[in-house]
């Protein structure tokens, strides 16, 4: 699943979404493993309040990774990913609230609902391109938002749904953290696998030049729909992690501004690097946590950071990895120069 040392030339260029100019799979895998180890330690050793902030970041990292399948790899800017994220949370809460289903049934059902919803929205929205696509996806997520707000009987309206939905061992905060981390790692590995598969390669090619790919025999609409459905399913899983974090679901999870978060994370962290959105999710979440304690104007800082990244490092923070000293390291690791 992770890159091996046996074919350095072959694996060159697969760590980063855009391929080619930068990758060092061995080093990358080692860093990723070390990061996961650090997160395990953080969950076990940090004061509980701090550990929960990290848990939130982990859940949002899954949301950002799933969104980046469309954004970084597919070149599709969707402002509708909150519809899938929110529906993941709502599915778990709704089936528990109304039918007394266990958390696990809701957890298993959520990605299926997310995928089905993404299929329906994607079939319509993917007939358009660029700005129109972004606006259509935004319209759908606002529709979901309004529906969740107005169906008081079913969704709890503005208050949403909350309650003791988690099984006992998961309700334990430390164990909930470890479970969240485990789900996130599995999602990341699956998405890694997907972006490096033939499907992922063709998706990147459609990002680069849609019309040419069509002229070479690809039904681009169907391919993008496939990516949209996959992304929807993973966003929905991220939504279930939110339930583990807060044991609730409310309309703001479906709002279009919620769709903006994973996009900001991907841009800050680097949407052309596979783990860029994860970096972005942590910077965003932890930065937000720290800033709100010190200033009421944290969004001002967010704006400044975004401007800085877009102007100075369009490849995001992960793009720093392609600066010089790293480049030399990579070459020695059987890179591509």
């Amino acid at each position, binding site marked *: 699943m992770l890159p091996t040392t046996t074919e350095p030339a072959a694996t060159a260029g697969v760590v980063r979404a855009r391929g080619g100019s930068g990758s060092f799979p061995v080093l990358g895998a080692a860093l990723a493993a070390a990061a996961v180890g650090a997160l395990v330690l953080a969950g076990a050793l940090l004061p509980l309040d701090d550990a929960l902030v990290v848990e939130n970041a982990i859940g949002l990292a899954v949301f950002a990774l799933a969104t980046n399948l469309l954004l970084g790899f597919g070149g599709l800017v969707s402002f509708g990913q909150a519809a899938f994220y929110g529906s993941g949370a709502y599915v778990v809460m709704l089936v528990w609230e109304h039918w007394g289903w266990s958390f696990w049934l809701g957890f298993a059902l959520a990605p299926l609902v997310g995928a089905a919803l993404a299929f329906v929205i994607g079939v319509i929205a993917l007939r358009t391109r660029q700005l129109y696509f972004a606006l259509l996806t935004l319209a759908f997520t606002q529709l979901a938002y309004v529906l969740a707000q107005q169906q008081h009987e079913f969704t709890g309206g503005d208050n949403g749904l909350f309650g003791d939905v988690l099984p006992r061992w998961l309700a334990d905060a430390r164990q909930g953290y470890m479970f969240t981390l485990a789900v996130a790692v599995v999602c990341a590995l699956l998405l890694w696998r997907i972006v490096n*598969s033939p499907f992922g390669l063709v998706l990147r090619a459609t990002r680069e030049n849609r019309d040419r790919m069509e002229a070479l025999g690809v039904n681009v609409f169907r391919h993008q729909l496939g990516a949209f459905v996959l992304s929807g399913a993973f966003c929905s899983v991220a939504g279930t992690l939110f339930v583990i974090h807060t044991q609730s679901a409310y309309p703001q999870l479906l709002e279009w501004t919620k769709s903006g978060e994973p996009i900001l994370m991907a841009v800050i962290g680097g949407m052309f690097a596979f783990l860029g959105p994860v970096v972005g999710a942590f910077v965003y979440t932890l930065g937000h946590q720290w800033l709100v304690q010190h200033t009421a104007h944290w969004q001002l800082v967010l704006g400044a950071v975004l401007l800085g990244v877009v102007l100075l490092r369009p490849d995001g923070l992960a793009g720093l990895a392609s600066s010089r000293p790293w480049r030399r390291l990579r070459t020695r690791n059987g890179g591509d120069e």
Partner: protein
Amino acid sequence: MSAKLLRVTGLTKRFGTFHAVNDVSFEVAEGSIHSIIGPNGAGKTTLFRLLTGVHAPTSGSVVFEDGPIAGKRPYTIARKGLVQSFQMTSIFPRLTALESIAAVIVTRSGRSADLLTRFHRAVESEARELLESVGLGAEAETEARTLSHGDQRALDIALALATHPKLLLLDEPTSGMSPAETRKTTQLVVELARSSGLTVLFSEHDMDVVFEISERVTVLHQGRVIAEGTVAEVQSNPEVMAVYLGEGPVLEAVAN
């Protein structure tokens, strides 16, 4: 006479009142190198777009092998084996040459929905072989956007070849190339046609190239076919000479 791979009959494309392509008919023999020439605005590019499905014709028919293809979607036509390489190079800027070719090979072999194999494992050797054959073997790991202009053209042609086309459409394959690059590309096309039995239909400005490698030539002028035949026949056609009067390269070529 060999079998006809492509039959175009009465093909017409009207934009408003303008007939970009007007009642065009011609046939392309299997395994031949056939060129379409004509001054700027003659309708060559529109004709190609009709053949590849970018535009739907106003009227007329296009039969490829034994099936009608006029008005079908571009990817449907491409899958049947009619594939174009573009005048303005149309590549994947941030993919490496190897990845670009691999993306096409997985599509052709019906593996584009495969989510779990590593694509390199699936198609790398075939992709490298193809890059080698168009002279890009050493550039496999280079991002397409940083390749030289000539190499980008070669990659563009390789992309089309990776689909294993039966009929390769080349829209002015040597435009913007240096004489050396033109020669290289021309040789490549001829070799491909000879070695793999590929049928090539191309439009070209450079008459030296046209007269050197074509087996048949169709001449378009103002959307209509004004002449068709072997190189010698077309060169001696008075109407063709009249149309091209004043265009230096042709006169020279004709004089030769």
